[in-house]
Structure formats: C-alpha cells, structure tokens
C-alpha cells in the first residue's frame, strides 16, 4: 500500500460518523468490517487493536469539528435543540467536509446546505436560516478587513456623483425574524462556565425555548459592523438598507438614492435630509473607507469617470 492509498483510507475512516455511543462504526460505508479495514494498514499493540487505534483519530476528528460548529452557531442550536443540532452538524460535515486549512471557515457553507436540507430545521426553517445567516455574518464581520476611514475633505468630496466604498467587514443582511435580539438573549442566557447547577441550567434552557417559541415574523434590515474590534448589530430602515446595498454593489450616490426610494413619492427636501442623516450616522461609525488608488485613477479632476 503506498502513501496516498494509506492516507485516502485513513481519512475516509477518520471522517466516518461515530455511532450514537461516540465509538467508531463497526462497518464502513461500503459495508466492510472496520476491524478488517483498520488491520490492513494499522498495527495493533499489546493494549489496543488496530480498530481501537484508528478509533482514537476518528473520535478526535468528530469531537473537534462538532465543537467548532457548536461554538460558531449557538443561536441555531438554541432554535432546533441540542440533539437535532448535533444530527444536523454531522449530516452537514458528511456532505461538506472542510475544504479550508482554517476551522474558522467550517460553517461557511451551512446556510446554502440547509436550504437544500430543510428537514433539519423544520418547522422553524425560516427562523433557523435567518439565525445561520446572522451567525455567519458575525464571523465575517469579526475578522474581515478594514481600510482607512473616509474623512471630510477626502478626494470624493469634489466628485458630484461619488462612489462610496463601504468597509469590507460590513455585513448587510435582511431578515424575516428579529434574530438579532434573539441571539443576544441566547448569549445572555448561556453560562460561560460549568458553574450553574442543574436546576439553573434547566431553567435557562426553558427560558430559551420560550424565547424561541415567542418569535414572530418581523422584517429586519441589519448591518453587522465593528466598533473598537467588537461586533455590533444595527437595525436600519429598508430604504437605508437598499441604499447601502447599492453602494456596496458599486453604484454611485445618485444611483443608490434612486434604488433606495424607487416607487416612493417623497419630497426632495425630505429625501435629501434623510440621506444626509444616514451619512452623518454611518460616517461617525466609520463605515465608509477612503477610495482605493485604482478607483481614484478613474476619476478625472472634473469628477467625471473616464
């Protein structure tokens, strides 16, 4: 057996889901005895069989990846419950094993996968999908790139229809449930350590269940952003959300305004005042960044794009 064959066989065994008792499966997916599979390439010793030695790696793999998703998606876990969450994670990881050198990216495909496997999140699929979307946005906002903040007097001021660039870490998400509040509440109820008694834990669990059950649909337009390296959620109006989204897509200021207020009959003075208020608020939060050198090259001194 050459190096590649050993590695392929071992990885397949290591990534095979554990039994309900967290042991290695007695048979492989194609029905072979795992005792025989393990004995083909792993030596036994005087204390452990080949199967038992391989099982150490099999268990380590699953404990590690499940712990990682558990840490990243506490909101989803609270919505569907611990047991279903674990089953969902196992199914997801079988279909979408890690393709990244970093565990940070393990949940990157979860939302897409759940859309094609809604059975794992029924009957609260929409709520659960919103939560996954928010929890992934939080990860992206936490360690996304940031660029120098746009200051009054920066080059864009002379452009009559400037293209504002948003900070790369900024995440814009539209939700159908107020899962931002729910996630904050879930975090508040989750003890940091193992200090709580069983009675306290049970009370917290029931509180979480009640909070999830109480959730009613509500359109929320959310910006997940950072202040001093901490992640925050900020709700904004639908028009503001459309406007920011347009800017993020590379639209100019005037195109963003048109897209934001399409179909709305608003006096121009009101419209200008609202946009000015948005800019004041968002600028104070550092959401706009300075134009990149590449962008500036395309802006002529008269402000026209070449």
């Amino acid at each position, binding site marked *: *057996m*050459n*190096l*590649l064959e*050993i*590695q*392929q066989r*071992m*990885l397949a065994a*290591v*990534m095979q889901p554990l039994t309900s008792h967290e042991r290695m499966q007695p048979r492989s997916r194609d029905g072979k005895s795992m005792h025989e599979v393990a004995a*083909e*390439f*792993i*030596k036994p*010793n*005087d*204390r*452990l069989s*080949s199967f*038992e*030695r*391989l099982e*150490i*790696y099999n268990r*380590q*793999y699953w404990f*590690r*990846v499940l712990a*990682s998703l558990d840490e990243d998606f506490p909101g989803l876990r609270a919505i569907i419950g611990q047991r279903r969450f674990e089953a969902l994670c196992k199914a997801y990881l079988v279909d979408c*094993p*890690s*393709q*990244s*050198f*970093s*565990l*940070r990216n393990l949940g990157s495909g979860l939302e897409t996968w759940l859309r094609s496997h809604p059975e794992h999140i029924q009957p609260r699929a929409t709520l659960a999908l919103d939560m996954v979307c928010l929890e992934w946005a939080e990860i992206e906002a*936490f*360690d*996304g*790139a*940031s660029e120098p903040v746009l200051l009054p007097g920066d080059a864009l001021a002379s452009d009559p229809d400037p293209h504002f660039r948003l900070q*790369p*870490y900024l995440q814009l998400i539209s939700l159908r449930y107020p899962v931002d509040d729910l996630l904050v509440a879930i975090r508040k109820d989750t003890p940091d350590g193992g200090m709580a008694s069983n009675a306290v834990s049970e009370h917290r669990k029931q509180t979480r269940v009640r909070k999830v059950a109480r959730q009613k649909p509500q359109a929320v337009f959310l910006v997940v952003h*950072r202040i001093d*390296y*901490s992640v925050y959620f900020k709700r904004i109006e639908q028009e503001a959300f459309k406007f920011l989204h347009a800017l993020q897509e590379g639209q100019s200021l005037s195109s963003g305004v048109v897209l934001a207020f399409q179909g709305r009959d608003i006096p121009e003075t009101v419209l200008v005042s609202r946009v000015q208020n948005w800019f004041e608020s968002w600028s104070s939060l550092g959401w706009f960044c300075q134009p990149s050198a590449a962008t500036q090259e395309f802006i002529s001194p008269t402000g026209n794009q070449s």
Partner: protein
Amino acid sequence: MPTNPFNGFTDFGVGIGLRVPHYQHILSEKPVVSWFEIISENYMIDGGRPLHVLDQILERYRVVQHGVSMYFGSPEPPNREHLKRLKALVKRTKTPWLTDHLCWGSVDGTYSHDLLPMPYTFEAARHTAQKIREVRDFLEIPVAVENVSSYAEFHVSEMTEWQFLTEVVELADCGILLDVNNIYVSSRNHSFDPLDYVNSVPTERVAQIHIAGHSKFEKYILDTHDHPVIDPVWKLYQRAIERAGRTATLLEWDDNIPSFEEVHNEALKANQFVAEMAVAS
C-alpha cells in the same frame, strides 16, 4: 552564539504560547516574557481584533510562528492561498523562523484538522522533504518541523520515527522543533524508550524545543496540553539540551488554561535545567 546552524536564536530562552485568555493580562500588565509563540492560522485573517492584539504584542515582544495545518506529509502540493496568507503574516511578525508539524492531515483539499501520523517509509520521507523545501523557498525563512504525538503505527513503516525524522530533515535540509512531550507520549503509546529517540536526534538541526503536559488514559496517553509538564518529560528536556545546547524553548498550554503567571512559571522551570547544564559544562 548559535549552538548549531539551525539555531541562531539561543538567546530566545524560554517563551510561552500566546493564548486568548491571557490577552488582557499581557496587554495591561506587560509582563517580562522572552518571546511568544503564536498559532499562525489564528492570525491568517484579513483584520479585526486578533490582528489588532497581535500588532500590540509585536510592539513589545518577539514572536515566533507555529503552524498547525501546512501538512507537509499530505499528498497535494502546498495550498497557494494558505502560503500567501502565511507569507503576509511572516512579513507582519518578522518571525525569525517558522515551524509546523511532520505529519499529514488532508487529502485532495479535504481537511481533517488533525495532526495525522506519517507512515515511516522512504517514499513518505522524500515526498515530505520536497514539500518542506517548496514551503521554505516560498516563505524565504528557515523552517523547522515538529515531531507529533501519535496513537497509531503503520505496517508499511520501514524505520523508527526518529530515523524518519532524521531522513526528512536531512533531505529537506531543514531544522527540527523537538517536542519532548510528544516523544514521551508516543514512547508510551508505542512502547519504545524515549531516551533512544532523544539520543538519536541530529542535534545540529534542533532549532527549538517544545514542552507540554498530557492526559493519561487506561490504555494510551493523549497529547492534550492541559496539564503541567511531568518529571519524565523534564528529564527528556534535560537530556535534549545536554545534547543540543541552549535552545529556544516553549511551553504549550492549550486547554483548561490557568492564569498567565501559572503558565509562565511552569515554562520558566526550564531555566533550572539550562543553569544545571551550564554548571556541568
């Protein structure tokens, strides 16, 4: 003075791993620490708090990068995105050398996120050495590979682990990060004398030493980095520095992490062995 061509950093002395629970203490109290080792992957990101903290640490301390996912023994060539991010971090930290494990952990781009043991064959040694060379040439800094703890051995192995380590580092012309706790753990799991290992390592290539604690189970020992260093591991450390001379030494503590002082004091115990060695020589 360097004690060997791969160890130009004997003045580094004893350091500890930089871990999140200690961030606040380090930044506010500014303790005297010879150097910190960082897990490269934790900082191979685009921005945010981890890099902000790292930059503050870099203002005051020396930092050496230690990776957990280069997987020199994996079949596929080095991941370009991984290498690019790693090189950007190398430029940021100015790490004088870089370490990762002598292991594999992925096949065709699917990652186990574990440090899986190598079959000790000449084929595996050649393949692994080639990949180490590619990574070193791309990063343009010295690379040292760490021996891992293992729980399995392969039928196809043609040599001992220490012979394999020697074969790989000679072919790759790279350094060794000698983890004496891993030697102890593997010696118990595979029933060999850990001193045979330490006595066989080509000391002229030892660039750094790791010490750590582990967990003992009924039939095997697991490398958990969640306890103080036990006496048999200190004895291996003592023997390692007797042979290799003063070498940058690092305590790893990754789980159930106690206070900064406790971790640092545990690491500083290494100094008594260095002092004894100096007296003896």
